[in-house]
């Protein structure tokens, strides 16, 4: 499956993640991976979503943009979906290689 990355900026509060993941479930959109990093003071977060690159992607973006707590949505075709694999590599390596997870998170943020 071809994948691509969507970058969201969201209001940071307890329900935001449920709204986003709920939308994917309800509309039967594919969501492969998710990364969320608080920004600045923590009032907002940046979320990176790994999604299927399918014709419905535009509809996914429009539906995400409608969520009240989603402040912006854009495609990040410039970022490689490998980001998540790198993150996972770091994770698998555990305490011995925490640096690679941190790098991936910074790349997203």
């Amino acid at each position, binding site marked *: 499956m071809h994948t691509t990355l969507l970058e969201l900026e969201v209001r940071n509060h*307890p*329900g935001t993640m*449920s*709204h986003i993941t*709920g939308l994917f479930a*309800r509309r039967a959109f594919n969501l492969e991976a998710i990364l969320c990093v608080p920004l600045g003071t923590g009032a907002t977060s940046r979320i990176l979503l790994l999604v299927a690159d399918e014709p419905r992607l*535009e*509809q996914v973006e*429009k*539906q995400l*943009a*409608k*969520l*009240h707590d989603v402040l912006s949505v854009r495609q990040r075709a410039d970022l490689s979906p490998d980001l998540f694999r790198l993150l996972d590599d770091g994770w698998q390596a555990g305490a011995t290689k925490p640096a690679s997870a941190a790098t991936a998170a910074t790349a997203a943020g």
Partner: protein
Amino acid sequence: MTINGAQILTTLLERQGIKIVAGLPGGPILPFYDALKSSSIEHVLVRHEQGAGFIAQGMARTTGKAAVCLASSGPGATNLVTAVADAYLDSIPMVAITAQVPQSLIGTDAFQEVDTYGLMIPITKHNFLVRSPAELLEVIPLAFSIAESGRQGPVSVDIPKDVLTGTLELGEWPEPGRPEKAPAIADDQIKELAALITKARHPIIYLGGGVISANASALAHELTRRIQAPIVSTLMALGAIPPDEPLYMGMLGMHGSKATNFLLEETDLLIAIGARFDDRATGKAAEFCPTATIVHIDIDRAEIGKIKQPFLSLHGDANEILGKLLATLPAQQRPDWVRRTLELKAAHDLRMPSAAEDPLHPLGFCRTLASLIPSDSIVTTDVGQHQMWIAQAYPVRHPRGLLTAGGLGSMGFGLPAAIGASLAAPGKRVVCITGDGSIMMNIQELATLAELDLPVAIIIMNNAHLGLVRQQQELFYGQRYHACKFASKPDFAAIARGFGIRGVRIDPNDDPLAQIQRELARPGPVLIDMPIVEGAKVLPMVPPGAANRVMICEPEKAECSC
């Protein structure tokens, strides 16, 4: 001034202009009821929270403004869910306020704790769990603003009991929530639309419920006349165009008229306004309007391209867009297209016996009903055959003149929605057309109606069946009828009287229309149990999933297509 959360909530609702709320209390919401008691807001006590949700919907559908329903935590909140989901699918502005167990108990499976926040996520425009009295000052105005902005819809606000009892040193009140301004439309888009229309030989205007919410009905009618294009309507847009407009083709789709569905096959320009290409309207979407260029006007950007990719889309307020368009668009003549439209319309007019021949013929009765009630009456329906017969034959004479559960199709909508409509439009005759199946789903609200003594008439088109289920089993399941016939026949008139409402059963052999007229002429609420023939069908019918040109027509002719 020190003030508690419940008082804050009450004052914010008053400042928002809320005059009536419908609900039913329970433990966690009691602090709010305590504050409501000394408020100017009238509380309508329902008998089931779903009734409160649909009463709020009846008010909102009548006024276009967000209305409020209340429920306590747990089962109170879950009982509201159907009415909230229904509001979501029909884009009805509503604020559903529920109480929650105190925050210290959230997450402990406390008595009557349910994850209302989680339940409401997929069925609201937005939802809140309020965490402090101070947050109410932000959340309540915002809830109304979201419910009424853009494409309207329900908002849920869940408030833990300790937020209602917690206090706050109050500074200034926030401004009431107001709808946001719609996005502006570029002039060159209007020009492009005008050019497409001018070039089109066979344009059709396709109206959805958005045209009613945008108060754009009058301009849509003007557009039809200006460009001499036939105009079709979804269930949700019935009432936008006066039924005597010659170019008005009524409802399209599954139970639309043959003429309308056939005409749509011939259009070269489909102008969709506030419509969402719902499957009941389009039939098999890939074969809908096969030869047409599509223009889509909608306030919800996500609707554009969701089902059909338009050639041109205009994202904004329909009233504003049509106003700008009409300001530049000269009158146009399309004599051949008008002739073709009128010819199809005449060839496939709805057929029904006259009132003299068969006064209680289902379709015929729905047509006759208009002559029995004032023209500014509001009709609500439940869900089933009676709803479709009303949609096909009752001439809805003004926008918001027909309130019906379109998207979710919730049986049980009709009676409480009629109560809400009557509360919002005092003095108007409100008629709920229902079935002997649907009425049972919120029949307890007869008690609420009796107390309010509103001019609501309930007419049960009684076929002793879940008629629409029977019809599907007849057509698509080889007449293997199962679970569609009621073994017992309750005496609905006696039930109504038991609730303190006039109740009559119509004798079909003794000038039934005169009996009904007599009952409708008397003031106050009434329930009229009207027998209709068992086994009648709603026709034409496009089988689910088929293209609209495939319509099941009269039984002896089986399928007809062109």
